[in-house]
C-alpha cells in the first residue's frame, strides 16, 4: 500500500516514541489517581489488516469496555482506551468509591465516571504529544461503549477505510506488575497526520 511504503524502520521508531511519550504520561496520571505503580509495556507500532486489529484485544467478539475519543487539531486521529469490564469495575471501586454492581452492565453513573477517568488519561496522553510535537491535538467529549471489540474498533478505522485495507496503530498496554492488564491505549492517526507528525519532529520526508 502506497501510504505505508515510506515508513521504514526509523519512522516506525519515531512513532513508537510518540506512543511512549503519550502513554507514559497517561500511565503516570493513572498511577497518581490509583496511588499505585502502573507499568507500561514497550509500545508496539504495527501496520495491520483491519481483520487483525480486534485480535489485539482478544478477537472481534471479545467483550470490551472502550472509551473513544476523536482527536481534533493539526494531527487528527482516533484514540481508544480499551479495558476489560472487570478492570473497569476495579477502576470504579478504587477511584470513585463506587462498588460496582455484580451485574454485567454498567449503570449510567458508572459509565459517566469511567468516561471521566478516560478523559483524564486521554487528556494527559494527548497534551504530552502536543507538547512533544508542537502540534495542536485535543480530544472530543468521550464516547463509551461496552460491546464486541470488532464492532468498537472498526469505528476507528473509517478514515483508513477510504485508503486501503490496513491501518497503522500505536498500541500501549498498561500493566499492574507484569501480568494484570489494566488497559490498552490505541492511537490510530488519520492517514494525513503522519507527515505532519514526522515534519514536526524533524524527520525528513522523502517524496519520491
Amino acid at each position, binding site marked *: *500500500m*502506497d501510504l505505508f511504503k515510506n515508513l521504514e524502520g526509523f519512522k516506525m521508531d519515531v512513532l513508537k516514541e510518540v506512543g511512549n511519550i503519550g502513554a507514559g504520561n497517561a500511565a503516570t496520571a493513572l498511577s497518581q489517581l490509583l496511588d499505585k505503580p502502573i507499568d507500561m509495556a514497550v509500545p508496539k507500532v504495527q501496520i495491520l489488516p*483491519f*481483520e487483525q486489529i*480486534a485480535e489485539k484485544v482478544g478477537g*472481534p*467478539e471479545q*467483550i470490551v469496555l472502550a472509551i*473513544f475519543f*476523536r482527536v481534533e487539531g493539526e494531527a487528527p486521529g482516533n484514540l481508544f482506551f480499551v479495558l476489560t469490564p472487570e478492570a473497569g469495575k476495579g477502576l470504579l471501586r478504587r477511584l470513585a468509591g463506587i462498588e460496582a454492581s455484580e451485574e454485567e*452492565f454498567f449503570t449510567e453513573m458508572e459509565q459517566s465516571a469511567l468516561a471521566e477517568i478516560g478523559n483524564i488519561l486521554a487528556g494527559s496522553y494527548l497534551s504530552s504529544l502536543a507538547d512533544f510535537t508542537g502540534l495542536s491535538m485535543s480530544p*472530543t*467529549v468521550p*464516547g*463509551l*461503549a*461496552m*460491546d*464486541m*471489540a*470488532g*464492532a*468498537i474498533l*472498526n*469505528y476507528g*478505522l*473509517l*478514515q483508513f*477505510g*477510504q*485508503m*486501503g*485495507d490496513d491501518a497503522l496503530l500505536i498500541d500501549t498496554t498498561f500493566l499492574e506488575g507484569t501480568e494484570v492488564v489494566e488497559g490498552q491505549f490505541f492511537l490510530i492517526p488519520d492517514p494525513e497526520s503522519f507527515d505532519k507528525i514526522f515534519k514536526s519532529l524533524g524527520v525528513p520526508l522523502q517524496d519520491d
Partner: protein
Amino acid sequence: MIEEQNVVKVGMADLNVVKTSGIIRTTGLGSCVGLTLYDKNVQLAGMAHVMLPSSDIAREGQLNIAKYADTALPALLQKMQDMGAVRSRLIAKMAGGAQMFTFSSGGDHMRIGPRNVEACKLFLKEYNIPLIAEDTGANYGRTIEMNCVTGMLSIRSVQMGKKEI
C-alpha cells in the same frame, strides 16, 4: 473461493457465498452492514460486510469492491448469478449499521452506520431486490450468520442476546 467446510467466514470489507449446506458468518459488525442475499431454490446464500456507503470517497489505488455498498452489491449479485442464482428470486436481509458512540457534535462520519444502511437500501432498490427483514441501527455490535438451507439470519449481540429474522 468457496471453502469446503460448513462455516464460511466473511471478513471485514469482504464478501462470500455458501451453497447447499453450511453457514455463512461475519463477526463484530458495528457501523458496518452485513448485507445478505438468498435464493431459496438453489439454497445459495451470499453475504457482504460493507464498511462504507460509497466508493466515490475511495482514495485507494486498488479498489476493494466488497468494502463499499455501491460496489459490493453488484459484485455479490454477479457471484451468486454465476453459481445459479436468479435475480428475480433473490431476497435480501441485513443487519448492523449501528452508531457505536453518540456525540452531540461530530461530522458526517460519526453517522456512518445509518448512512451505510441507507446506501444498502438504495442499491437494493436499484437492483429490484426486496429487503424482507432487517435489524439495523441502535448502538450495539452484532454477529450474524445465515443458514443457506433455511435462509434464516440469526443475529447475536451482547445487549440483546440472540434473535432470528
